[in-house]
Each structure stands twice: as C-alpha cells, then as structure tokens.
C-alpha cells in the first residue's frame, strides 16, 4: 500500500515538474527584432516637392531611435501609376512593417487600402495627398498629415489681391480694369486640386477677376508647358496672372514665357520648392505658398513614435501644417 502511494506521489511530482518546464517555455521572451521597420509609399518621386519631402523624411528617420531601436525604412516609388502602387502595397503588407507611410496615387481609393492595411494589422499614416474624411473614419489606426489645401489656395487669392491693390496700373496691361488670368490645376478629380482651386476662387471673389482659360496639367512641369503652349496666343499674351495649383506647374508656365521671351505675368504656385524659391528671390516669379514641409515631416515622425509606443491619444486623425505666403518682399521682411 505504501509503495503504491509512493508511486502516486512520484507521478504527481513528475507532472508538477513538467508543468513548471512548460510554464517557463511559455513565458520565455521571444527573440526581438533589433529594428523598427517602416515602409514609405510615394506617388511619384519625379514630383520635385515629393522628392524633397522624402529626402527630408529619410534624414529625420536616420537620426531617430524608437525605444532604443534604429529605424529601417524602405521607399516604394509608384511613378504615378496606381496599378504599380497597388502591387507595391501588397509587398508592403507582406513585409509586416511596424507602420506604413502612404502618399496615395489615387486618394479616392483610400478606403480599400486602409481596409487591407487593417487586415494586415499595420497602422497607416497617409500624407500629402488627402483622402476623404469618411475614409479616415473606417478604422482606428489611420491618420492623415498634410496641409490645409483650401487655406493654401485662399492664400494665393490674398497674395494676388495685395499685388493688384499695390500695382494695379502695372499689372492691368490691357487696361480693361479686370485681372485677366489663367488657372492651371492638378489632376481634375484630386481632392487637393479641387480644394486649392476653391480656396483661391473664394478668396478672390471680391476682385475684378476675368478667367481667360483653365487647364489641368496633372501637377507636372513639362505637361504644364505643353498644355499652356496650346492655348490661344491672344490669351497667353494678355494673361496678367497665372495661378497654379503647385510649383512644378508654375515653373512649367515660367518655362513657356522664358522660351518665348515674352513678358512674364504674375505667376503663383504652391509648395515653395527650392527652384521656385530661387526664382522668387531673383524677382522672376511673384510668389508661392510654403506648405511647411518640415513641420509635416516632424509631425509624421512624432506620430510614428506615438503609434509604436501605443500612445496616440493626443494625436488627431487629421493634422495640417499652417501654410505661409512667400514673396520676395515677405522674405526680406
């Protein structure tokens, strides 16, 4: 009887030891990745603004450490093709990045992209090309960082108003008492293009504006030159101002006038790219709107840290940098 009890006790002790070993194995920490992994999807790195944006982002991320870990990032350039970006996003989900930064080719397709990222359990920061508000509400782990497109457009209107009031005699070359202008827009269905244009039109409502032509050049410099050249020569020669949704297209219009040695109208862009800034400082181009790219990049990095520390309470879903008017005079002041 005693020997039976001893055997029983031995089994109990054996099982207890087995349980202890299993518990240790269960609770043993996993081998951790030594880096934080970030995927960056850019719509087109041929866009000079986006190229500078990504370079700034790269420099900041290389200086960053999140909870002691270096950041390993990878850049995916969609070259303006939504099909290419779709394939790249599939590769990005498979890489299981800790966070992805996405500059969409087609902001109207944000909903499906956000859902796919949610399925892959990857937080998303959309930047620069704004998606619809309702798309951002689909899931919790998605944010947007960009500029207030309408405010940037409105600022163009304010800048135009200022120069019209100060130099009306010089600007109104055909002396019809109106400001004859050409509007050059980004992609027709693009939210930012629509908002920038609306902002400009609303803020210049009280001016004697006379729109002579309106064209879309998909944010591109060469396309802007080509399409602008196709306008009626009478319109081109009488244009007193050319308002563009971004700097690249403004530079495209500048290229046209420079090539034809024609008198330069008041040209306005948005972004404050280095080349545009140089031309403003030399007085060849009137002005642009600085989207405060550095502030946006800084905010993305802060938000990224917060996401990885799972502490995003103080971050709003949508964050805009405050645009700032750039003219030769404003910079001197």
């Amino acid at each position, binding site marked *: 009887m005693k020997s039976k009890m001893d055997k029983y006790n031995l089994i109990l002790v054996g*099982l207890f030891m087995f*349980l202890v070993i299993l518990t240790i*194995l*269960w609770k043993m920490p996993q081998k951790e990745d030594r880096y934080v992994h970030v995927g960056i999807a850019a719509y087109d790195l041929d866009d000079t603004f986006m190229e500078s944006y990504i370079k700034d982002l790269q420099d900041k991320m290389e200086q960053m450490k999140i909870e002691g870990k270096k950041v390993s990032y990878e850049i995916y*350039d969609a*070259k303006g*093709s939504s099909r290419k970006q779709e394939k790249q996003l599939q*590769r990005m989900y498979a*890489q*299981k990045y800790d966070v992805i930064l996405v500059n969409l080719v087609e902001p109207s397709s944000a909903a499906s992209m956000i859902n796919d990222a949610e399925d892959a359990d990857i937080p998303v920061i959309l930047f620069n090309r704004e998606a619809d508000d309702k798309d951002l509400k689909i899931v919790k782990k998605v944010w947007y960082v960009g500029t207030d497109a309408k405010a940037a457009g409105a600022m163009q209107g304010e800048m135009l108003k200022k120069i019209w009031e100060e130099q009306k005699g010089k600007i109104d070359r055909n002396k019809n008492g109106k400001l004859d202008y050409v509007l050059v827009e980004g992609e027709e269905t693009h939210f930012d293009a629509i908002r920038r244009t609306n902002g400009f039109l609303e803020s210049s409502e009280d001016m004697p504006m006379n729109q002579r032509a309106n064209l879309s050049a998909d944010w591109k410099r060469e396309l802007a030159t080509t399409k602008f050249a196709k306008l009626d020569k009478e319109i081109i020669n009488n244009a007193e101002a050319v308002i563009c949704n971004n700097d690249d297209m403004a530079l495209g219009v500048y290229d046209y006038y420079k090539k034809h040695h024609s008198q330069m109208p008041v040209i306005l862009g948005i972004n404050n790219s280095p080349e545009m800034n140089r031309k403003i400082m030399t007085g060849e181009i009137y002005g642009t709107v600085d989207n405060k790219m550095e502030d946006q990049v800084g905010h993305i990095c802060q938000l990224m840290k917060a996401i990885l520390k799972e502490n995003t309470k103080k971050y709003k879903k949508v964050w805009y940098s405050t645009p700032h008017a750039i003219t030769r005079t404003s910079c001197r002041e």
Partner: protein
Amino acid sequence: MRQSRKKHAVLILLLLLIALVSTGLMTKHSKIEKRSRMTVVFPKNEPEDLSALQDGIRDYAYDHQVKLDVWYKEQMSAEELKKLIKEEKKNNSKGVVLVYPENYLEKQADGYVYKDVLAVTDRMQKEFKYYASFAESKEKAYRLPVKTSVLEQVKNGKKKEILLENTYKLGYESMKMKTITLKPVKLDRETMESGKYDALFAG
C-alpha cells in the same frame, strides 16, 4: 480514503494546468515568425533608376517569405560595413546584398572577402567574393526600365533589335547569394510581340 481523494483532485488540477499552459505555448509558437531575414543596402539619392532591380528584390522576398532589413547609404567605410554585418547577424540576417556599392563604399586595397555579402555591381566584381552583374557586351545595352520611345522603335522596326539588361532578374537572382553574371538578351520585334517581356515593360 480522504487522502486518496485529495491526491486525485491534485492530479486533475495538474493535468488541467498542463493542458492550459500547453495551449498557450502552442499559440505562442504559431505566432513566432517563421520567415528568414536578409539585408539590402541601397545607394542613397541614386540618380539612376533602380526600380526594376528593386522590384526583383522585393518579388524574391515576397515569393520566399523573406523579411528585409533595408538601409540607404551615401557613404560607407570598410569598418562601417563590418559593423553592419555584425549587427545584422545578431538580427538573424542570412546575408547582406550591397546594391551598387561603387556609389557609397570606399574601395579597399586588399579587397573584400566577406562570406555573407554579395554585391550587385558594375565595377567592383574584383573586390567581392560573391557578386551579381551583367556580362560585358560590345554593343550598347539598354537597362530596365527601357524608355517607351526606344521600345516603340523596336516595335515599328526602326531599330532591328536592342540588347536588354534585365535588372529585374539581376535583383531577383542576387537574393540567392550566389555569384551570377547575366548575359544581355536580344530584344527584337518578334520577341516583343510574343509578350515574353510584357510584365517588365508594363513597369
């Protein structure tokens, strides 16, 4: 009798606990990443279009479930390379692929003989034990991505044929960490119409 009942209760409790802990352990095991890891170093601010080569590397990683540690370098000394390899080994990386190191890595007089490093290179084949590059050709060779205007010329017969360096394949093959020299392929109207390279030209 009472003691025996107690022991039975302890036994049942132990078995239940073992079942619970085993389930937890299995769940943890299923969540552990089974993918292998590799490291890729790209030149930073590279003016040449590396998109096809990058697509090849990414497709390999996708097809073979490889997690990538990616770095962009403007400059790198031999010491920094050694340090990177050491760190990557600690992170369980199976190998390091240096993409066009001639653009950022200082040349060493005695060469590099790192076992787990492969260089995708045009000019540093002698410096590395393992490398992936194109065989030299007498005629001018076009690299992917090829301009649409050039492809059009082949299609409409203005150019009889061109030599094509398939950078997509170079990227894909380089991830196998074995020395490879790819010959440029001849691309004429017939090959184009066969649709063999359509996926590559579609970008």
